[in-house]
């Protein structure tokens, strides 16, 4: 399927989802739907660097939070910027920071890269917590407008925006996957040394992946202050976003754009249901168990299981070799 056709199909599906939610009438669906769509974006974004290139980012929350805090920083602009503009700005800020982070950390071996991303997230969090303009550790209050014509409820507007963003994210991921860039990413994941030897400019590609990944996450975070009303650094920068951004692609499947989508929709919905029926702490327990379970039993995720049992493709784990073994492959 060509990419523009795919985009139209996705827009169609997104529109249908929105219409169904409106028809159902329960406003809670929009709140829950926003979160699920947000996770689709986050999971897809993470997967571009983590699944395609094999570089595990633990600091996903930082990019998400950057997008959110960019919105907060612009909040005092009068008249306030509309959400689509905020999304673009949030994406730009996060993309640039992603590029910077990549430049600092991408020369590191896999495990060190993951730890460095965690470190950067904390440094960013500390900076924000100490910046009073965006509320510091006290947090920031964002007043959400009541209605937006013709949709009515402002949350409906946010949900629609996030749905569109999810469509954009998925289309972009699919486009990348099938392009020359996608092949390059796969070689980085499989064997970076051999990739370089074959002419792939690995550092440049990794920077591109980091920038795109960071930008998308920032875009997902931009509308968040309007959604939540009260922004707190500890939870916005929290590990909860990091674990979901990692768990959803891993459970869904890391090698294609479908995996994060499946993982986000399934896990996101599961968490919403659990929050409503049991408690919100149980959420993370579920994520933890599913993550551990899938990673042991079904390393290629749901997509992998589908390929194995429905399409009868041979099993075989796809992914990166040891984090540590980047030696030149032979004795001196």
């Amino acid at each position: 399927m060509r990419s523009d056709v795919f985009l139209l199909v996705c827009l169609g599906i997104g529109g249908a989802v929105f219409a169904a939610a409106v028809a159902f009438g329960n406003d809670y669906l929009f709140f829950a739907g926003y979160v699920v769509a947000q996770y689709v974006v986050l999971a897809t974004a993470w997967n571009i660097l983590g699944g395609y290139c094999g570089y595990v980012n633990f600091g996903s929350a930082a990019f998400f939070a950057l997008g959110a805090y960019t919105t907060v920083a612009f909040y005092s602009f009068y008249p306030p910027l509309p959400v689509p503009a905020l999304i673009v700005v949030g994406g730009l800020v996060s993309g640039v920071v992603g590029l910077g982070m990549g430049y600092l950390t991408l020369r590191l071996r896999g495990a060190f890269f993951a730890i460095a991303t965690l470190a950067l997230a904390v440094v960013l969090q500390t900076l924000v917590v100490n910046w009073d303009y965006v509320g510091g550790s006290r947090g920031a209050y964002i007043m959400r407008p009541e209605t937006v014509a013709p949709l009515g409820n402002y949350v409906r507007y946010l949900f629609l925006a996030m749905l569109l963003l999810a469509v954009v994210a998925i289309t972009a991921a699919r486009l990348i996957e099938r392009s020359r860039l996608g092949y390059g990413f796969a070689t980085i994941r499989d064997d970076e040394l051999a990739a370089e030897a074959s002419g792939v400019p690995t550092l440049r590609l990794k920077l591109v992946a980091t920038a795109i990944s960071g930008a998308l996450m920032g875009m997902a975070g931009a509308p968040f202050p309007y959604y939540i009303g009260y922004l707190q650094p500890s939870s916005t920068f929290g590990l909860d976003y990091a674990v979901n951004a990692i768990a959803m692609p891993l459970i869904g499947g890391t090698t294609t754009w479908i995996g994060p989508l499946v993982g986000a929709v399934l896990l996101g919905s599961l968490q919403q249901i659990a929050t409503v029926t049991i408690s919100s702490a149980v959420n993370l327990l579920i994520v933890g168990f599913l993550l551990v379970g899938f990673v042991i039993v079904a390393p290629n995720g749901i997509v992998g299981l589908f390929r194995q049992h429905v399409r009868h493709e041979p099993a075989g784990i796809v992914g990166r070799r040891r984090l540590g073994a980047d030696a030149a492959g032979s004795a001196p």
Partner: protein
Amino acid sequence: MIFSFDLLINAIVSGILIGGFYAAVTAGVSLSFGILDIVNIAHPAFIILGSYLAYVLNLGLGLDPILASIVMLPAFYALGAGIYQIYYLSFEKRGQESLRGLAFFFGLLFITEVSLVLYFGVDYRYVEARYIGPTWHFGPIDLPLRILVPFLVSLLLIAALELLLTRSFIGRAIMAVAQDQLALKLLAVDPIRIKRIAFGISIATASLAGAFLIIIQPVEPSVGREYIGRVFAICVLGGMGSLPGTLIAAMMIGIFESLTATFYGPSWAPAVSFGFLLLTLAVRPAGLLGR
């Protein structure tokens, strides 16, 4: 910023004491990450588990928390050995340690933490012992016993581990397994068994570190998270598997955090260890006393 000599001296001493404790916290990761190349990001969660178990035994049986943690050592060792076995069968054997191994431990982190939340709730817990409360004074220097005692026992722990690694057969086998598995096999030593023992020891240290933690400060389940970065920062700075290096790096971090908290405010302290980590990774990935 109010500068006074007393404040400075106490900040440095406090940093050294806390640094000793940080070293005990990191010792397990020096083993698992520094030597075995296993990114056990869940280690701080196991420490918190140790804290809660020490709390339970302290509350129920009146056991001194450090004694309680020693009683729990075999259980933690078994936990570590079991986790390694799963890790080995699921990841190392298949050659897939990287992303999925990391995710495995990340999942364990959450399972442990949330289980503690569900069982104990989010209230802070603390233990009771005779040395929690009194403070010794040496001139301008204040030495709170609740930090001094864990500091001293931490030093003992580090010394014991170092002796184990350098003098005993098991210890040297552990050091060897990181560098040359084939040589071990030729000596009829099963490298997997050695790694299992090493990882078991690594988690066992979490029991002790947990007791130290809950003596120093009240604990609730999410406290572990602030240690994740600290622990890896110290491990990398200290040269990845060098215990003396870990001790020095831990004290350095302790001192810098203490100075930052005293003169700039505690909200800047978390950035210290992470800033150090980033700097080290950028400039000298082998750490201060790197292999």
